[in-house]
């Protein structure tokens, strides 16, 4: 019980207390760099500015001291509840994501995931499907036509992309043969020979031994490149940030579902979008980028390498390296998402829907067919 609480606190503190405030700063600075500006650098404490890192604090202070306004004719209870509902799914999804492998210290086994459940990926989908309610309730309870339009757009966009998101990762499930996220990460802690298929097909009896050295880590992105692109697109559309910001659509429906929110309640919507960025990073890193796995150095190799410190210390070093690698991958995914957000122009609403139903859906079904055939074929040869 105590171990579970410590694991829970670790992941929540890292994401909520360390990543979340800095991401708002990263978003500003990264967009500034991309647009050849200086970016936020004005907030200071006694003249100390450190690259504008105080801006998140200034933001939150400002949002907390603003008036908390409920419009006339709004449904008061639901209007106040909606921002909180928007926050919940992202926090809940963190429970099943492994941020480290399984480590053995004598009799004690440490599995660095809060809830190691067999249906982890289904749990993420189930929790993610509830994310629609925050936007829908907010838009309806505000008693504003722009908000209602935003809520309609949010619900149709999120339901559509949920379908394709599920189909896009079926290929990954087939390749890994599991829905359990820690098992997926362990699977990706191996390598495969890039030219091994030549031998498998029987084209050559045995390849020259030096070709064995040309290897790739068994990551989802190498086994399912199309699945990676489709899944990333879908999960970014679920986040409702540009280029998929039709529910907010500042240029057409003012601000969409959170138009009537002020102060920290608006801040909560903003925070939930920013919180989803690292959570998306964690999901994508676990499914496609090998989770905590360090490429080409499996867990046994690392523990063996540091073996001269003794078994316990070597395992602890390996654990620290794995957690660090996982966080590095998450940081890379955060960078990638912000770069995409500031690169692509926003889609029109009908384009968002066309992309989902006319391009991603057929492609993901084709991906499932091809993957299924390939998995059957390779199993038949082995």
């Amino acid at each position, binding site marked *: 019980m105590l171990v579970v609480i410590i694991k829970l606190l670790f992941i929540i503190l890292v994401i909520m207390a360390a990543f979340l405030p800095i991401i708002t700063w990263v978003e500003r600075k990264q967009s500034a760099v991309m647009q050849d500006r200086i970016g936020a650098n004005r907030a200071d404490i006694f003249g100390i500015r450190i690259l504008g890192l105080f801006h998140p604090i200034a933001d939150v202070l400002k949002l907390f001291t603003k008036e908390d306004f409920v419009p006339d004719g709004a*449904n008061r209870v*639901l209007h106040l509840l909606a921002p909180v509902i928007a926050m919940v799914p992202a926090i809940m999804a963190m429970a099943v994501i492994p941020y480290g492998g399984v480590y053995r210290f004598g009799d004690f086994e440490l599995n660095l995931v809060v809830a190691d459940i067999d249906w982890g990926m*289904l*749990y993420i989908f189930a929790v993610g*499907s509830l994310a629609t309610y925050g936007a829908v309730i907010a838009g309806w309870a505000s008693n504003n036509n722009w908000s*209602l339009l935003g809520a*309609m757009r949010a*619900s149709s966009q999120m339901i559509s992309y*949920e379908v394709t998101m599920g189909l896009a990762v079926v290929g990954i499930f087939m390749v890994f043969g599991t829905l359990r996220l820690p098992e997926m990460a362990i699977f990706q802690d191996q390598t495969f020979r890039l030219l091994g298929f030549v031998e498998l097909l029987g084209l050559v009896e045995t390849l020259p031994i030096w070709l064995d050295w040309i290897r790739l880590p068994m990551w989802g992105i190498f086994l399912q490149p199309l699945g990676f692109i489709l899944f990333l697109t879908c999960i970014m559309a679920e986040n409702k940030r540009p280029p998929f910001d039709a529910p907010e659509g500042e240029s057409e429906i003012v601000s969409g579902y959170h138009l009537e929110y002020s102060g920290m309640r608006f801040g909560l919507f903003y925070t939930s979008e920013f919180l989803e960025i690292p959570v998306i990073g964690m999901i994508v890193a676990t499914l496609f980028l090998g989770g905590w796995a360090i490429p080409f150095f499996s867990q046994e190799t690392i523990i063996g390498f540091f073996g001269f410190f003794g078994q316990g210390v070597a395992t602890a070093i390996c654990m620290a390296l794995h957690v660090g690698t996982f966080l590095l991958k998450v940081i890379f995914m955060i960078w990638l998402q912000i770069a995409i957000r500031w690169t692509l122009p926003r889609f029109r609403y009908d384009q968002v829907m066309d992309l989902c139903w006319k391009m991603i859906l057929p492609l993901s079904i084709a991906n499932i067919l091809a993957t299924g055939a390939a998995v059957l074929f390779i199993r038949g040869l082995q």
Partner: protein
Amino acid sequence: MSLLFFYIFAAIAIAGALGMVLNTRNTVAAALSLVLTMVALGGVYVLFEAYLIGVLQILVYAGAIVVLFLFVVMLLNLRGPDFSPRRQRVTKIAAAVIGVLALLQFLQLIHGAFGAPAAIPEGFGGYRQVGTALFTDYVLAFEATSLLLLAAMVGAVILAKRKID
């Protein structure tokens, strides 16, 4: 521990169901109460080790179907029951008949429920077992259902689209 969680989920489910039935003035709030019931039922299923059903309950019912309910309710913008007295009478009679039937079924369930519980086989209710059963023993029914759904989907598209180009 799991009994405590069962009571919590059951209480939420019943509260949500009551909120849905009794909340006749605000249709959106009624639909949201239904969501509460669905999520709590999902929790109950998980406590009974029917993991797949529990997740699907939340994913399909709470996450998709009730959202569509909400979609329709918001678009129609219903404000209170505006049925004529005659239709109200019909509704009341229908509700009474269905209620009596449901009560009878419930009594029958209770009557048969106190035997020894059957032993649960290993891995029962997981996605592997359900998937294997669906694609081996029940593959015909499964494919027939999928065809039926496909036909319904095509029909809905044709009905909704005024002009097929």
